[in-house]
């Protein structure tokens, strides 16, 4: 079942907000049921969810929370894989305190992920998981692709990690585990086209031997992963994840900055692959800073419900007058992270990845 929503309160950059269930208090009149203080909330589509926004607004945090929640839905995970949100951020954090919002450590601190029927809540305040029994056993298969390419460092990596304290977070470790899993006997025929496209781009297929990854080129050459261009390594990783059966129907792909190290000419290929995976029943979450990458998803989709854009931005609370009487500290809050969602990038404002492109185009115009 796809992930339908996330709710975050006082974790990292996310604080309590004065808003109406992620609606906009400023624009609409109050209605019965509206809350004066609420957590950050985001509702997702079943297809591809594209998170955009400036640095430091919590895009990667949201991806990691969803990943943590889905890992908790599986009773047994592969040896060496992590589960706790804490480890996904850093291997050096001692406890949950570091993840709490610095200004609101004594308030409730939690994030909650829901598929519409079941809920997973990681409470940093209670130091435990709420709704765990309800969630455990849902077996939501998920893969997180971090920004950093990891496969070229795989030789002896996992064994070293068990013995030593390595400076890598859980997502970086897990991706090596996932890529190292055995291949499935047979892939669904619906994946044939995607595999062929990736194989053409990397000019071969990916294998793992003695903890190391190689690309077997179509002319038979065996090329060490570390010698391949970093953008193509990303495609090789994707090929391996699909080949290992990790991106099948009802699974979830979380990909942080897919455009990183990728030549822009490969954006159409990668967006095509994502759209094809989505059509095969994979729910996808990507965080991107790149207008062109996001725009390819918008224009290449077959129907608008296939891709939804979520804009995260910082703004000052402008509480409506009617709500002011309920708050004693209405003027103290500022610079909170807000969000808005739409099926078209043009409907999102302020859209920082478009603003950045527009600034450049204005400079070119005025040159």
């Amino acid at each position, binding site marked *: 079942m796809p992930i339908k929503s996330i709710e975050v309160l006082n974790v990292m950059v996310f604080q309590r907000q004065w808003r109406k269930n992620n609606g906009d208090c400023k624009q609409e009149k109050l209605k019965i049921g509206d809350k004066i203080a609420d957590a950050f909330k985001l509702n997702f589509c079943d297809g591809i969810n594209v998170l955009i926004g400036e640095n430091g607004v919590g895009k990667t945090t949201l991806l990691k929370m969803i990943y943590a929640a889905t890992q908790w839905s599986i009773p047994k995970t592969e040896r060496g894989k992590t589960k706790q949100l804490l480890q996904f951020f850093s291997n050096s954090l001692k406890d949950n305190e570091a993840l709490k919002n610095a200004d609101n450590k004594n308030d409730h601190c939690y994030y909650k992920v829901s598929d519409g029927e079941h809920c997973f809540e990681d409470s940093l305040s209670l130091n435990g998981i709420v709704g765990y029994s309800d969630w455990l056993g849902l077996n939501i298969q998920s893969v997180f692709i971090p920004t950093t390419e990891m496969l070229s460092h795989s030789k002896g990596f996992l064994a070293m990690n068990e013995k030593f304290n390595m400076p890598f977070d859980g997502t970086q470790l897990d991706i090596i585990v996932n890529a190292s899993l055995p291949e499935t006997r047979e892939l669904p025929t619906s994946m044939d086209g995607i595999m062929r496209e990736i194989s053409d781009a990397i000019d071969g297929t990916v294998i793992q031997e003695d903890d190391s990854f190689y690309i077997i080129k179509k002319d038979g050459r065996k090329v060490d992963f570390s010698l391949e261009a970093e953008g193509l390594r990303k495609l090789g990783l994707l090929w391996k994840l699909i080949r290992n059966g990790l991106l099948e129907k009802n699974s979830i792909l979380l990909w942080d900055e897919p455009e990183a190290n990728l030549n822009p000419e490969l954006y159409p290929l990668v967006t095509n692959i994502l759209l094809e995976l989505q059509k095969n029943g994979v729910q996808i979450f990507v965080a991107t800073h790149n207008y062109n990458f996001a*725009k390819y998803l918008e224009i290449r989709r077959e129907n608008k419900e296939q891709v939804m854009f979520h804009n995260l931005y910082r703004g000052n609370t402008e509480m409506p007058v009617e709500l002011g009487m309920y708050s004693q500290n209405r003027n103290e809050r500022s610079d909170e992270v807000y969000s808005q969602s739409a099926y078209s990038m*043009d409907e999102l404002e302020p859209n920082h990845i478009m603003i950045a492109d*527009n600034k450049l*185009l*204005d400079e070119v115009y005025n040159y």
Partner: protein
Amino acid sequence: MKYIIIEVDMTGIFTEENGKYRIDCSNAIWATDEVHKDYQNAGLHINDTDFLIENESCILMIEYKNANIASAVRPEAFNPTEDNKISNVTRKFYDSLHYLKLKNKTKTVQYVYILEYPNGDTVTRKRIRNKLKKELPFALQDNIGDGIKLIDKVDVVSIEEWNENKDYGKYPISPVNKDEF
């Protein structure tokens, strides 16, 4: 764009060729939507922009294209960034200068392309604007103009951006039939 006059309104409210939107130029010093008709009547087969509006400081030369309306034929096939489309829009600017000369309208021209098309956004419109700038006489007037300008600015905007702009918005664009939108 081949222009068909749907309505000529003496109050300065003009309807665009598809009959879906109108532009209210009643606040203008002078405005016309008859460039095409006047060129045709004179037997000229040259290009023309859809509207000319004179305000206190400049002439707004306006080209209007809306591929987002329900009756648009294969709107997804309309690509305003193609070289021939850019060339077509620039030719309309140059040919409309004759009209201004004969009307003794000597204020500097701002060329505004009001453009609606599927999946268009501010970034794509600015990219089109920059392409247009290269084809319009900005460099020429800098090189030989001796202070005289044929054009002061080129802009590509959506209908919403037009209406929200403090200068353009004095001549608001609205649907002819509000129930349709």
